């Protein structure tokens, strides 16, 4: 046993260094807010085929074929039971007033509930499809409400905004629409 040399001086410190490094990593993980949003992997890919019935009588339903006529637009995934969806209503109204076309996908919603929601918060949509089984939502990689997608004139998904559109997000969406429009 006498042949085994005592560890050299720097290796004595190695366990401590490893421990401090690990503790630092754990602390930074504790204090950094976690990324809880699941981004869609469908950016740059075409929309899937779908045909949704009209969510309210006043607006037509929504199909894949309505979204490939050469005009870029916003596709807003919302629901009457979703509180942040009410928060983003003024921002959608602003964009609509500027001439942006917005189509809606209402998730698991009854016509009377959607109508009440639109009566209260305004209706910026040209078409609203009722997605009763999250078919479109799952098809485009959306994991919650509200989410807003920029769709180009060919029906390709170009950008995803997760969560409610706050006033500071309007300029970015405007810019993304301009990018895909040209």
């Amino acid at each position, binding site marked *: *046993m006498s*042949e085994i040399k005592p560890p050299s001086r720097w290796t004595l410190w190695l366990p401590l260094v490893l421990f401090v490094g690990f503790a630092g990593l754990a602390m930074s993980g504790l204090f950094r807010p976690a990324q*809880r949003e*699941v*981004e*869609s*992997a*469908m950016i740059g890919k075409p929309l899937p085929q779908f045909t949704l019935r009209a969510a309210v009588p006043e607006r037509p339903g929504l199909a894949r074929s309505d979204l490939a006529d050469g005009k870029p637009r916003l596709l807003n995934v919302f*629901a*009457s*039971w*979703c509180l942040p969806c009410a928060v983003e209503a003024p921002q959608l109204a602003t964009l609509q007033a500027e001439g942006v076309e917005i189509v809606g996908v209402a*998730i*698991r*919603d*009854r016509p009377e*509930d959607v109508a009440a929601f639109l009566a209260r918060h305004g209706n910026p949509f040209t078409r609203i499809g009722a997605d*009763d*089984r*999250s*078919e479109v*939502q*799952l*098809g*485009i*990689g959306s*994991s*919650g409400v509200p989410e807003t997608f920029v769709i180009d004139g060919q029906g390709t998904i170009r950008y995803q905004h997760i969560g409610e559109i706050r006033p500071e997000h309007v300029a970015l969406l405007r810019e993304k629409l301009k990018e895909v429009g040209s």
Partner: protein
Amino acid sequence: MTRAWFLLAALALFAAPLSAQDAVPPAPYANVQLPDAAQEAKAHALMLTLRCLKCQSQSIADSDAPMAGDMRSLVRERIAAGEDPEAIRAWLVERYGDYVSYAPRVTPLTWPLYAIPLVLLAAIGLVLRRRLRKGDGA
């Protein structure tokens, strides 16, 4: 007893807004098993390894979120139509990335997780061999 009733009433009051996203009847196979037991077993095994996107620490088999119900129905309907479970997983991964799947995969990012234990085992083997040989010599 009256207190229990009062509590129940209070709970029901708070539950009302939450139930709104259940206003529409659930997808046909959200909470209904497939008639074919073998297909249901296949579907259930897959559902246990798919992440609920609304409640991210649960599988869609465990979650009561309406969206998880829609995902269960999607899985069961596709299995019933004869689709391979791994094809359904791939379809979801194409939309949500690897995050949606609980089944680990070897990718350029994850290969060290599989390689490091092998390297450590090999290193331990080497060290042991050296020590044992020295022991023989003494």
